[in-house]
């Protein structure tokens, strides 16, 4: 077991932003699973986007080589992160931009608030940006009397619906067209009451609603998909043109980026501008990408501020195994292929980073203790690893974080946890054949609980195990008993008064296979069935 390796570096502070949910994952997931409309919306959306991604990824003969390159570039960028950030700062400054550094969410919010105040504006238009949601920027601006208008259609739906985003790419994926129409009619104020629920009519309503704001905006706020250390170039990838509006029309542009978004060289974009769109929207290329370097006289904002944010990223960097979570380019491919995400949606994860990568990234940014249930929010099926354009080994990271959590808890608790006691007891039992056999015989009492072949609820303290999955009904006979009966029947080796399975076995070709009625669904006795995953 690896010891915690974050070297005492501060994680993202509590009480600000959206990296921690109100409820642990199992509680939130159970709530989400009860919402059949949500499950229908998610199922439809993830099926559609999975098919699109598979088609455009299949078009490229060098997709695996691009993934390898993406992984290598990101690893190299992190290995020299300090140097690349200094280089980025130097380049941006040389081209007329101003670079700010923020240790955490609170500091970033203060910087942005004071920059907006400095312009005299009380409104700002925003490009979709997960990092500003991570730090709770809109709340901080509102507290300072500044209104931030979300301009991405999905973010607008979320903002007008007083809701939370539930997907990295499509934050309103949990809403269907009828729900969106109702939100627009209720909240927009300037919308035609005859608005239909066709997506094109809804998009047109958003266009009209936002047009005036774009044309009069004084301050734009964005995140960044990439920042090039070598040239000081910032890059925002989008579809609707709201990003271009926010990045081009205001006098002042404020960009907030996590320090891990850096790429060393200009040529690296040749890799990432292939990996990101195909993995994200399932398109060969997204409709619009903006790249800018500092300030261009006569074109676009004449004041440019770049805020470089830590907020737990250096703590993640200090975990040499977990570090690769910082390679994430926020494409959301892992969400769309995840059997858990597809059923529970993004809200259940409690963080702006949902799905498989969120289950890794959120605990790394906050410290595992504050998101302790997320590393368990996975069946470890591995689909996320296959889909990841930068080859983040998410299943291994989930297991790594589970181990980190167990170790951290063990170090801080004076009384061992029930899990630790159970594991210690299991270790003692399994160390002796006699003890193991006795325990197996005792386990047969569990047959009383699972007459249908499954145990849905175990008594406390074992109820924690069955809160999210069924346990198999223990078989009538253990493997050891069966073996003895089969091979030593004449020597009085028959165990427990159970009739020898040899009379019912399928013949010599199938040793260990017992018929269905004798226990666990045709599996060898004693072998566990998989429980239902949440």
């Amino acid at each position, binding site marked *: 077991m690896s010891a915690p390796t974050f070297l005492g570096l501060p994680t993202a502070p509590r009480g600000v932003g959206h990296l921690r949910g109100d409820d642990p994952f199992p509680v939130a997931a159970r709530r989400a699973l009860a919402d059949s409309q949500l499950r229908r919306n998610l199922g*439809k959306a993830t099926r559609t986007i999975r098919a699109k991604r598979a088609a455009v990824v299949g078009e490229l003969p060098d997709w695996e080589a691009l993934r390898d390159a993406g992984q290598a570039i990101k690893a190299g960028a992190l290995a020299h992160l300090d140097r690349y950030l200094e280089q980025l700062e130097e380049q941006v400054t040389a081209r007329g931009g101003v670079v700010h550094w923020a240790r955490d969410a609170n500091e970033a919010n203060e910087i942005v608030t004071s920059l907006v105040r400095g312009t005299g504006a009380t409104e700002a238009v925003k490009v979709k940006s997960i990092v500003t949601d991570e730090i709770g920027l809109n709340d901080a601006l509102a507290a300072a009397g500044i209104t931030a208008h979300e301009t991405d259609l999905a973010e607008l739906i979320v903002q007008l619906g007083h809701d939370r985003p539930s997907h990295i790419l499509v934050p309103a994926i949990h809403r269907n067209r009828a729900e969106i129409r109702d939100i627009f009619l209720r909240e927009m104020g300037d919308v035609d009451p005859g608005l239909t629920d066709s997506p094109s009519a809804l*998009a047109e309503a958003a266009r009209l609603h936002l047009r005036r704001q774009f044309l009069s905006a004084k301050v734009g706020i964005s995140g960044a998909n990439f920042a090039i250390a070598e040239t000081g170039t910032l890059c925002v990838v989008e579809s609707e043109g709201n990003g271009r509006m926010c990045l081009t029309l205001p006098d002042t542009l404020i960009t907030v980026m996590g320090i891990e978004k850096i790429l060393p060289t200009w040529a690296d974009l040749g890799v990432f501008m292939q990996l990101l769109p195909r993995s994200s929207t399932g398109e060969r290329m997204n409709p619009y990408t903006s790249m800018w370097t500092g300030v261009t006289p006569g074109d*676009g904002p004449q004041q440019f501020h770049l805020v470089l944010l*830590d907020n737990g990223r250096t703590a993640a960097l200090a975990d040499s195994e977990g570090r690769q979570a910082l390679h994430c380019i926020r494409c959301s491919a892992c969400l769309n292929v995840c059997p858990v995400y597809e059923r529970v949606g993004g809200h259940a994860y409690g963080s702006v980073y949902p799905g498989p990568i969120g289950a890794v990234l959120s605990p790394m940014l906050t410290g595992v203790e504050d998101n302790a249930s997320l590393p368990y929010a996975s069946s470890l099926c591995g689909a996320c690893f296959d889909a990841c354009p930068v080859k983040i080994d998410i299943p291994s990271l989930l297991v790594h974080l589970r181990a980190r959590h167990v170790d951290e808890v063990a170090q801080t608790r004076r009384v061992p946890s029930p899990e630790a006691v159970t594991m210690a007891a299991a270790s003692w039992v399994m160390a002796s054949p006699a003890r193991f056999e006795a325990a197996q015989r005792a386990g047969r009492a569990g047959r009383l609980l699972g007459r249908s072949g499954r145990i849905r609820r175990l008594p406390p303290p074992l109820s924690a195990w069955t809160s999210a999955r069924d346990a198999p009904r223990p078989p009538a006979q253990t493997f050891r008993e069966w073996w003895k009966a089969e091979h030593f029947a004449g020597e009085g080796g028959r165990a427990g008064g159970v009739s020898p399975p040899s009379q019912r076995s399928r013949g010599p070709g199938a040793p260990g296979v017992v018929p269905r009625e004798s226990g666990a669904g045709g599996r060898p006795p004693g072998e566990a069935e998989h429980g239902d995953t949440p």
Partner: protein
Amino acid sequence: MTARDEVLGRIRTALGGEPGGGAHPPADPSSAGYRTHGELDQAALLDLLAGRLIDYRSQVRRTEPDKLLDTVRAALAERGARRVVLPPGLDLPGLSQPGPGQSGPGQSGPGQVGTLDGVELITDGGLSAGDLDQMDGVITRAAVAIAETGTIVLDAGPGQGRRALTLIPDYHLCLIEAGQVVALVPEGVARLRPDRPLTWISGPSATSDIELERVEGVHGPRTLEVILISTID
């Protein structure tokens, strides 16, 4: 300690004591195994670009240099545009010479107005966002086009203008020369200048935010039309 020093210090702490001092060989595209050069000839490249543009719902016209003005004229007529903005430096061969049905701004200065078959052509000289919102369209050239992805890239150079020009009007007519077309994304990146503001455009603006159903035309131009100019074989 400033936030800058503290964040940089944390990074060094986090990376410190790594085996090998955290050294990573810099990524070298030439040895990376992915494609960096396409192998199509120019005709095939243009066909691929046209196909990919159409696939993402751009409109495409093919023409030759001496027929460019006629093609532009036909596109504007079909669109029904009355007032169109041109970036400074947009040189349309044939437009600067007075002729039947036209009088042109050609290389003339900003703010000047010409006409082409009754369509007003207004050269940008710092029009406001509100002024641009009154225009029916914009005509530009581009810096590079990437065939495999159906992407055109504008770099605010001559004949392209500042970014707002191709953003606010609802119709963008973009002229691409055959020599500007590359096959692959890495080739496009290699041709671009990072010190210029760049806009990569792949089809008209679109959203899939409602039930993943694609809708063309949200905030950027709802119609993108591309004229591909190739020399005669």
